[in-house]
């Protein structure tokens, strides 16, 4: 065994301290950088066991270590196409028939990647660069 330290607080030599519970709570529990085109591929990730392609712009990320509940925080990135059509590309939580309860799970998260046109209409899209992260409590 490499060794284990049990402590409630860490303090720097300069006197700044932080509760170890804050470190455990505050670190990202999942993040991913993946390519959604063709056969989707994860470029780099933390706590991801698999990436599933459900259809155009529709992906499920499964966690290696599950979250303790579904009240966690997730966020994905938006992109702006400078080609003049004002298109925004965004990672969003999937919320189709069945609602979030079907797609936001302790073991996985299902997301849509969509673009918004100038009229704010959305279309699912397989984009090359997709980034997202999750913060919350692990089981």
């Amino acid at each position: 065994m490499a060794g284990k330290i049990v402590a409630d607080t860490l303090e720097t030599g300069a006197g700044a301290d932080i509760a170890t519970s804050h470190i455990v709570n505050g670190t990202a529990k999942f993040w991913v950088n993946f390519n959604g085109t063709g056969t989707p591929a994860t470029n780099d990730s933390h706590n991801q066991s698999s990436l599933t392609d459900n259809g155009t712009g529709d992906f499920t990320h499964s966690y290696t270590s599950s979250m303790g509940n579904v009240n966690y925080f997730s966020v994905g990135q938006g992109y702006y196409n400078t080609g003049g059509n004002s298109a925004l590309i965004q990672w969003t939580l999937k919320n189709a028939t069945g609602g979030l309860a079907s797609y936001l799970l302790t073991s996985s998260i299902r997301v849509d990647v969509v673009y918004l046109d100038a009229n704010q209409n959305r279309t699912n899209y397989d984009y090359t660069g997709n980034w997202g992260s999750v913060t919350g409590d692990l089981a």
Partner: protein
Amino acid sequence: MSEIITNKLTGKTAAGNVTITSEGGAATMQLQQGVIKAWVNFNGRDTLAVQDSLNYTSVTDNQTGDYTSAYTNNFGSSNYTAVTSSFTEHNNGRGSFNLCIRIESDNSITLQSSSQLRTVAVYGASSSSNGGEYDPIPCYINHAGDLA
């Protein structure tokens, strides 16, 4: 209560691997992987000003709503994440507003390297106006990933 006073945490088996026990106690996870490696809060209006940051060496104002941010300690590759945010102006008829990653007409990312990222602040089109680039006051970016 116990307290550790130190300036540095280093893994014993592997220097870059310090594990933490999960909130529920069912798992362990690598601390370094979960730590945010860079974040910034900057004012993009008028003379650009960084309000506070971690691991940012500079933010450059390229033109209206167009910024390049550079890191003090570089990432190990360009495969890190970025999450950005700004605000919505609710009283001027503009559509949704955000700080986004700048991409080209062929959907390639304009600039993301281990040392820099280019973003663009935009507002979406609405029934009364076209979308466009804009200098917002609060701009937020944070990054997870592997440092070099």
